[in-house]
């Protein structure tokens, strides 16, 4: 019996998924659990496994296609078996070529195929609209109906005809943004325009941190790993720094999950190390390493990037001394970490050279205020100065 391969809903609000690549090809024999294809959602690239043994057949959606969740995109059939015919509702019309977004993702269905002759694939079209469209050469499939129940009326057709006749001064369409780039643009704009940011900067002596890293092995552990561990442990004392703004109220988060900002091809994502306050440094390092690799290859899973309660972003490797970071809502704060560099500092009345590092904390003023954040930052600076007190 044929089994359908369906565009899965990987996230709560996901409406469509983009096919990144087919790992298996039409005609390949697959066993249950093997990876069939990769799908990109708003947040991550996910591998989709075969849900049954069989031969991959009737592959209908191809690399680059954006498909509503629930849509059948291929079949797994017995050797020699023909894949079932697609219902008209599931077959993309000519207009939905590569990269096109279907008009009505909400209408997608996992239900069994409708009778094949069903002519309607969407909105109703009034007889008058249909005639006018023919006369004026308007493509009805490109029109969104504004009549009762979304019926396409003559008014819609005339409007479309007018638009088509208007001189097209529009520049050539830019390539569509990737999901990561689009999401980054939306989220940072939303945060920067809606979250009242404030910033606290603090220089700290990183000598002890460097020593600790050398003790644990510079290959295995990064400064970021140590900062994740220390920050998480300090956060345990400062629950408001680990809180979230939740539609007018402050929600304290039961666990401390540190997001580590990671550069990916088209932007930045926050890969999450859950319960970082209770996780040993080598484990943090191992998790961070795996997440980094997945991020680089664009294979982060939805779970990898959700649930963070506090973000650390480190641009030290790019020789940035200090910077202000944008909070990732609903988190209340983000810590921007600059490079560790030798600087001349005053020590006991004398100039001295020390490995220094600048931390800049961005806070959401709806959740925390400057004094609360300063106390946290002070504790964190203290922890960096004497990490042994915090890490057993």
């Amino acid at each position, binding site marked *: 019996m044929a089994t359908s391969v369906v565009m899965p809903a990987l996230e709560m609000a996901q409406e469509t998924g983009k096919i990144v690549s087919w790992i298996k090809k039409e005609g390949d024999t697959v066993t249950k659990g093997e990876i069939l294809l990769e799908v990109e959602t708003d947040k991550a690239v996910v591998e989709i496994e075969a849900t049954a043994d069989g031969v991959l057949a009737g592959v209908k959606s191809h690399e680059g296609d954006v498909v509503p969740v629930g849509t059948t995109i291929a079949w797994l059939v017995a050797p020699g078996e023909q894949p079932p015919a697609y219902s008209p509702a599931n077959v993309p019309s000519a207009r939905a070529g590569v990269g096109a977004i279907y008009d009505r993702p909400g209408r997608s269905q996992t239900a069994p195929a409708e009778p094949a002759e069903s002519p309607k694939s969407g909105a109703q079209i*009034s*007889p*008058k*609209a*249909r*005639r006018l469209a023919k006369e004026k050469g308007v493509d009805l499939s490109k029109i969104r109906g*504004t*009549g*009762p129940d979304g*019926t396409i*009326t*003559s008014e819609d057709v005339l409007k479309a005809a007018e638009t088509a006749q208007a001189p097209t001064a529009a520049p050539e369409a830019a390539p569509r943004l990737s999901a990561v780039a689009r999401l980054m643009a939306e989220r940072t704009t939303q945060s920067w325009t809606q979250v009242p940011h404030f910033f606290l900067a603090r220089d700290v002596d990183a000598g002890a941190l460097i020593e600790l890293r050398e003790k644990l092995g510079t290959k295995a552990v990064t400064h970021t790993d140590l900062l994740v561990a220390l920050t998480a442990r300090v956060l345990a004392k400062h629950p408001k720094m680990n809180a979230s703004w939740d539609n007018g109220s402050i929600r304290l988060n039961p666990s401390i999950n540190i997001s580590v900002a990671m550069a990916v091809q088209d932007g930045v994502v926050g890969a999450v190390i859950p319960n970082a306050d209770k996780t040993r440094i080598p484990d943090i390092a191992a998790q961070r390493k795996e997440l980094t690799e997945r991020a680089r290859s664009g294979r982060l899973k939805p779970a990898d990037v959700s649930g963070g309660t506090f973000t650390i972003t480190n641009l030290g490797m790019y020789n940035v001394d200090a910077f202000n970071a944008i909070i990732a809502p609903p988190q209340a704060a983000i810590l921007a970490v600059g490079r560790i560099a030798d600087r001349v500092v005053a020590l006991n009345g004398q100039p001295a050279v020390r490995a220094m590092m600048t931390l800049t904390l961005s806070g959401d003023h709806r959740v925390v205020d400057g004094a609360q954040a300063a106390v946290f930052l002070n504790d964190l600076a203290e922890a960096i100065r004497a990490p042994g007190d915090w890490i057993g």
Partner: protein
Amino acid sequence: MPESRELTLGEAVREAMAEEMRRDSRVFICGEDIAEAGTVFKVLTGLVDEFGTERVLDTPISEAGFTGIAVGAAMTGMRPIVDIMFGDFSTLVMDQMVNQAAKVHYMSGGKWKVPMVMRATLGATRRSAAQHSQSLHAWFCHIPGLKVVLPSTPYDAKGLLKTAIRDDNPVVFFEDKMMYKLKGPVPVEDYTIPFGVADVKRVGSDITIVATSSMVQVALGAAKLLEEYDISAEVIDPRTVWPLDEKTLIESAKKTSRVIVVDEGYGRYGVTAEIASVIAEGAFFNLEAPVKRIGAMHVPIPFSPPLEDATVPTERQVFEAAKALCG
């Protein structure tokens, strides 16, 4: 400026008959309770005084009988008007109207004609229960050889009734019993209204409401409500449902692209069905939406007043339907 005055629809009907009886001595009326009583609706009050009991002929309760008399009289040179008190009693006259009056001219190769008028009433909400409240005009529209008239104003009633009396063929003339008190201007001088010519009762551009008889008033009321929503409704009264002025209906439908048909008869296989079909055929490629029909609820008309009222199309109902069609 032609002289005009306000008459009720009942007065306009009486005046039309009186004038025609004065003009043509072959015209006479027969029916139940029409002479001294002037009909139960008092429409014919006073006619017997002017024209006598030979021309205003009270009959026994015998619809089939006196309708048959009228058919024979018409065939032999008279111009009778038959008064059927309630249109519900059409059941009793069907053989005379359908198998005799409608057929004679054809079956005699045009040698005989049947210049008679059958007047009857239609319309509910008079608390007359299931056997005295029906609107059965559609039955006659189905028969080739009969003309069917549905006046909606005093002016139309008088002009159309005169045309009916002067017509050489059998005409069925339905008056809504609830409209006898409706007042409107009626010219003093003689006039007739040709059959098969619809009247645009209100000019509009967004939706056409085709309405007959008392439903014209309902449609005009709905059109007024629609004004507040910036929906301009055109109200068309076919006035005669056979012959039907298809051209005017189709032209209006083409202009507005949306149509509601309202008639107090039952919708199923009824006047609204025929008119909707004419419009769908004639204006299909100019329609934005299916033609909406509104007729009497498909039930025997209840005696209970609230239930009876619920069976008849209302302004609100037409208004809501129009709003839905216009989106």
